[in-house]
Every structure is written in structure tokens, then in C-alpha cells.
């Protein structure tokens, strides 16, 4: 059987890769994808603990998280498109309108 430790380790590593991606990439699209990756790591934990405790709540919440991720992607991509129309770029360090 799958041990809980292995699941936690994999999800931890996925989350770390996601955080590193958010911090180091310039492309707003890739940053959005990294946020999705972190949500998936959390989902993996939800499911592992649901399996561990024998309750179905974790799986139900993982499904809810999936829905939230879809909503977040819709708004995020709309923002990226609007930004591209205004500033002609999706590189986050070219966007410095609020910088004094």
C-alpha cells in the first residue's frame, strides 16, 4: 500500500517547485500555472488524509478546491489578456505602474 509519508513528501516537493516557479519566473502565464501546481499539491494532501482517516470529506473538499482553481484561472487569464491589451507585455517586471 502507499504510505502516507510518500504522499506527503511528493506533495511537499510539488509545492516547493510551485513556490520557486512563482518567485523566479517573469512570465505571468507561467506564474499562474505554478499557482495551479501548488493547489494540486494541496489536493494531493487532502486525498491522502481522506484515505488515511477513512472519511470522504477530504475528497469532497479536493473537488471544491478544483472548482476554486478553475475560477481562479478564469479570472487570472482575463487579467493577463487585459494587461496585454493595455501594456503589450506579460512580463511581470515590465508592469511597474504603481512604482513611485
Amino acid at each position, binding site marked *: *500500500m*502507499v*504510505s*502516507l*509519508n*510518500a*504522499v*506527503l*513528501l*511528493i506533495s*511537499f*516537493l*510539488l509545492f516547493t*517547485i510551485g*513556490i*520557486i*516557479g512563482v*518567485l523566479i*519566473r*517573469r*512570465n505571468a*502565464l*507561467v506564474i*499562474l*500555472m*505554478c499557482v*495551479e*501546481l501548488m493547489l494540486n499539491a494541496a*489536493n494531493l494532501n487532502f486525498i*491522502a488524509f481522506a*484515505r*488515511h*482517516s*477513512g*472519511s*470522504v*470529506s477530504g*475528497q*469532497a473538499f*479536493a*473537488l*471544491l478546491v478544483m*472548482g*476554486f*482553481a*478553475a*475560477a*481562479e484561472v*478564469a479570472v487570472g*487569464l*482575463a*487579467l*493577463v*489578456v*487585459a494587461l*496585454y*491589451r493595455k501594456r503589450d*507585455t506579460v*512580463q511581470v*517586471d515590465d508592469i511597474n505602474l504603481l512604482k513611485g
Partner: protein
Amino acid sequence: MEHFIETIGRNMFAIFGVMALGGAAFMVGSRSAVHSVLGFLFAMLCVAGCFLSLEAEFLGMAQILVYAGGIVVLFLFVVMLVEMSKKKEKAVFQLQSRHAIAVALLGAAAFLGVFRKVLFGAASPDALVLRPELAAGLDVAKQNAQAVSRGLYADYLLPFEILSVILLVALVGAVVLAKTERV
């Protein structure tokens, strides 16, 4: 041969997990956005495989439908819309990359230090096995989808309804944000 296949079957989760890590690393490291999307797709499919090997069949299939079918296609469309810019990307990574990686790894190390016992300690003997007194409660649901639907519609109806409202708001917000200013 039989033994080999059996070993693979037992380690399905680890195989899918390592492949997901590879896809994620490819996504973060690759220069072109399309390659990043493909790495993302691969990682999501492997995470779906992980869900399946954790016996969450419904969620595995939902993962494939939502991510591979919906979100990745959305990302690809936006990449095609946006990435044809005239000026080329100056650099892939931020200026502060080195500091950022150092800080992230430091945070990860601190996390590992705190949760070392949980992650690497002796696996609890009853890991990931249904406890009998809990399994009795799940007897009504013979299949995973049934169990999940009971969880969603019986125990967590309010969060589910709130999620539907949030999806509606996100839909309207996306339309308002992305529409051209013609008024």
C-alpha cells in the same frame, strides 16, 4: 516478468509522483511558454495518476477532465493570443532569482526540519488503510463516486453552493475584464 509487473503495480504512486515532479520542473525551467504548458499538462496527468493510485477514482477522472480538458486548453489559447509579441523576452528568470531560490529552499529546509519526524519517521502501521469502524460507515457507498457525492451533497452542501456562486462571479468578472473597451 510477473514479479516485475507486480512491483510496478505496487509502486504506481511513486512512479506517477516522480513523473509529476519531472513535469513540474520542466514547466518552471523551460524557456518557451508553450513548452511550459506542455510540462504543466504532463504534471497534471501524472497527479491524476497519483489520485487514481490513492483510490480516489472520481477525483482522478475529474482532474483529467478539468485540467487536461479545460484549463490547459485555456492556457494554450491565451499563450497563442499573447505570446506573439514583437519584442522578445529579455530573460526568462527574474533578477532576484538567486535570492528567491535561496529563500524558498531555506523555507523548505525549515519545513523539513519541523516535519522531519512526520515525513521520514517510521510509517505508522495502519497507514492508508481504512479503520474498520470507519469503513462500516462508508458501507452505504459501494463506489467512490457515490461516496464523494454523499460527502458533497449531504455533508458539505453549503460550501458546494457557495462554490457555484463563486464560479458565476468569476465568469462575469472574466467577461468584464477581458472585453474590449468599446463603450
